[in-house]
């Protein structure tokens, strides 16, 4: 082969390589116009992970596997073809992505039904049966199993009752808190937590407060009620004062940012209305809080 032919062949090779890369660029450019947003996909992924934790691979393996694959296709299929160390994601077209998103959603809902379903009719959902080591497909007839199952059923029932009680308590608290003056609640806007024995607002909560300030400035007819709470450490008197200080700190912040103080009502409730039991440091942190209620005039 003479030099001219070699040069021509090399040129052709180069041109095809450039065209190939251009077509890939075009393809990825089209995919960049994402129709499904990241939030939607990550919400599905979160749900999938939760179902996996509930023994999804045992209760609904097919549904979960299909959902997993379609979700991966949404993010781009992993390919190790050009490298043994690193993978790259191969994207699919937008129309296919919408289709796969629907499939993933359908498979996830089917998986959820199976995981929370009771296939053998013994009163226990599949994930609980896998948890305790009984067969979710066959009703448990052994006396030992039945005893265990009864105990677990009672536990589940008690847990549900506790949950309901908590929700009812919270509802009654809210209605009690709102029931003052000619104002009624719009919604529970935000909750801010405090460090132990402190009434200073943490920097991480400032953006929430700024949102509330903007909202209050945009709606001058609204009032706000701030209620401070504490954990169970210390005397009642001290905690009542601390709770009031917490509410006051937030009021001061709002007033400094242009909200009229007449629009803000503060209450310190201290050692009451716990959100969770005060067993751990995290639980106590959850209870050390100030809650906001935005209210509007009833008439």
């Amino acid at each position, binding site marked *: 082969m003479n030099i001219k032919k070699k040069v021509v062949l090399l040129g052709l090779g180069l041109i095809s390589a450039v065209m190939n890369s251009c077509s890939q660029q075009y393809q990825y450019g089209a995919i960049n116009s994402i129709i499904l947003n990241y939030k939607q996909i990550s919400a599905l992924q979160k749900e999938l992970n939760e179902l996996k934790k509930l023994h999804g691979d045992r209760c609904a*393996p*097919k549904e979960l596997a299909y959902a997993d694959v379609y979700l991966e*296709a949404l993010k781009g*299929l992993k390919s190790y073809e050009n*490298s*043994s160390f690193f993978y790259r994601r191969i*994207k699919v077209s937008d129309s*296919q992505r919408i289709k796969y998103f629907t499939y993933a959603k359908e498979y996830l809902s089917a998986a959820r039904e199976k995981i929370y379903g009771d296939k053998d009719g013994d009163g226990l959902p599949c994930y609980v049966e896998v948890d305790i080591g009984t067969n979710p497909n066959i009703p448990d007839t052994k006396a030992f199993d039945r005893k265990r199952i009864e105990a677990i059923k009672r536990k589940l029932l008690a847990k549900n009752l506790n949950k309901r009680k908590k929700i009812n308590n919270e509802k009654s608290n809210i209605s009690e808190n709102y029931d003052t003056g000619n104002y009624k609640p719009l919604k529970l806007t935000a909750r801010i937590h405090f460090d132990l024995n402190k009434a200073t607002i943490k920097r991480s909560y400032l953006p929430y407060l700024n949102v509330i300030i903007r909202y209050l400035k945009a709606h001058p007819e609204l009032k706000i009620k701030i209620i401070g709470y504490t954990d169970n450490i210390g005397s009642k008197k001290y905690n009542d004062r601390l709770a009031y200080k917490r509410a006051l700190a937030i009021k001061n912040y709002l007033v400094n940012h242009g909200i009229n103080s007449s629009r803000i009502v503060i209450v310190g409730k201290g050692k009451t209305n716990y959100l969770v039991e005060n067993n751990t440091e995290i639980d106590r942190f959850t209870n050390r809080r100030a809650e906001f209620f935005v209210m509007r005039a009833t008439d």
Partner: protein
Amino acid sequence: MRKTLSILMLVILFKVSFAESFSGITTTELLDQAQQSLKEAFEAGCPEFAPYEYYKAEAYYQLAKEEASLLNLEAGRAGAENSIKWSLRAVMKRYDGEIIKNNK
């Protein structure tokens, strides 16, 4: 210097040899291989003993077929590749006996 160069050459050769693992095969051949692996997994009883892995392989295969039919060959190849991988995992799990039989 020589040592460094020789190590570098070895690394490059190693990488290239792995990179070539699927590149010589057409998409159709890769899909056939995926189907064959899936069939083997099915015959080994994977739907019963390693269902999650088996169905994942099946899902990848379906996806690969669909993408290849739409001429998105790269995605088709990636799907087939993943399908083979999961079929192998299913077979491995089936013979490792990770699934406890009393839960059948």
